[in-house]
């Protein structure tokens, strides 16, 4: 088994990471879009409930599902979903973007580890989206009066990192898959609504019929949202979220292995068929 050259991996990681941040900061429209994006999405999720009654009525109804803070539930769901979406586009569509830019063949000709390239894309996407956490928490306390109920900051930190790792791994998996199917745009857009629905971004998953809940529990975003809600809103500690964390780690491993497998197929097909640049 060949050991990876840490220096070479670091050089690849740094180059891709810095390139992505440069591209990101080069487009003013993109920066503004990133800043504004969470606000209408959050408002949309909250106001859909307001069609049914006053905030007090809604909070009362949601208590039967164990939800103590109606706005808090939606805010955390929205943040995790936004992260998922950013990482799906930032990591999952990254290799397909190279194809659109005409640089995919050059990328695959270099000896750089493609997995490192993808992880660097994922981390740079996290940096781009990190402001959402701060902004949404500020907004939520100012506008919706949500106060976090945290008993263990360590649990919050572990859950956040574990969720981000799982989301990066989804991106890594889809990166190869999108290149193979040549339908990144359609697939990434098509996945948005089902993931938003099944992962319980705006409602508790337990409100779904049992059959649909099985689908929810196959999606890492569901566990990410659940751990964050428990640790931030219900003062849960690590022992309260161990099962969700375990599921997240298993899924992260599966997605990373499947992603590596997809990348290998992409490389093999690229050499065999020579159609890598075609879209």
């Amino acid at each position, binding site marked *: 088994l060949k050991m990876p050259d840490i220096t070479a991996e670091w050089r690849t990681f740094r180059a891709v990471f810095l390139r992505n941040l440069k591209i990101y900061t080069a487009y*003013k*429209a993109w920066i503004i879009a990133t800043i504004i*994006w969470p606000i*209408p*999405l959050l408002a*949309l999720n909250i*106001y859909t409930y307001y*069609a*049914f009654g006053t905030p007090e009525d809604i909070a009362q109804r949601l208590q039967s599902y164990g939800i103590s803070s109606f706005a808090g539930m939606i805010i955390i769901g929205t943040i995790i979903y936004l992260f998922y979406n950013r990482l799906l586009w930032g990591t999952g569509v990254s290799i397909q973007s190279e194809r*659109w830019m005409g640089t995919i063949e050059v990328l695959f000709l270099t000896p750089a580890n493609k997995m490192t390239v993808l992880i660097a894309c994922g981390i740079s996407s996290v940096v781009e989206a990190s402001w959402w956490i701060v902004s949404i928490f500020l907004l939520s306390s100012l506008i919706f009066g949500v106060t976090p109920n945290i008993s263990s900051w360590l649990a919050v930190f572990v859950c956040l990192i574990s969720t981000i790792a799982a989301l990066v791994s989804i991106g890594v998996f889809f990166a190869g898959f999108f290149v193979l199917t040549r339908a990144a745009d359609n697939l990434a857009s098509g996945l948005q609504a089902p993931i938003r629905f099944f992962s319980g971004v705006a409602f508790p998953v337990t409100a779904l019929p049992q059959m649909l809940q099985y689908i929810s529990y196959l999606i890492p975003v569901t566990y990410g949202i659940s751990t964050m809600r428990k640790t931030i809103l219900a003062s849960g500690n690590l022992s309260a979220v161990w099962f969700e964390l375990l599921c997240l780690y298993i899924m992260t491993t599966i997605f990373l292995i499947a992603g590596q497998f997809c990348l290998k197929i992409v490389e093999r097909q690229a050499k065999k068929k020579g159609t890598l640049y075609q879209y």
Partner: protein
Amino acid sequence: MASDFFTTITGMQDYLAYATIGFAFNSFIFSVAFGGSNAIRGEQQEGTAELVFLTPANKFAWILGKTVGNLCFSLITFFTILFLGIIFFGFRPTTAPNFPLTFLGILLTLIALTAFSFVYAGVCFFAKREEELSQVLWPMMVFFSGLAFPVEILPQWAQLISWLIPLTHGLNITRRALLLGVCFSDPSVILGLEILVLQTIILMPTGFLLFSKLEKSVRKSGALATY
């Protein structure tokens, strides 16, 4: 499924039917409102934008062609969502739906959204990153036009923005025609139709002018092909 609160505001009994019509309209946002910008962005990414804009072809006709092409698919989506609403969510129009009014409401909305798409396409010449901008604009349009909830529950300032979006009026007319069976003489329908016509009259020339101006400007700066 509906609450008394919802029925009092909208006069409608079934929220799922209300939301089904709303989300059926969602397909028009992507195909029509974002159709022009998406077409330009696509040519830029594929490296063919300069060639397209060098040809003597009328650019409005080109964008219109692309938009109408997208519209064909979105009409399929529109009817598929209504059909799925019937199957899964028990969506039933009223016993006497007003189909001519529904058709007129949708048609006027599409025309007004086309005018908006020219403005947005021009903006995307400069802003680039059409995908990211559309991702922000989409929830804004969904939020302010009341796709998922009645705009009457929004704060006053937000309702003002809602009134500026053609989709709000098109949705209101279509919902009232399909779910309440109202006729052309209904005051809120008359008002909605008047606003849609007015928006089309204002937006069309504005869209054409702005697009031409921005196209000329982008030709001057040589930023047509850059993305």
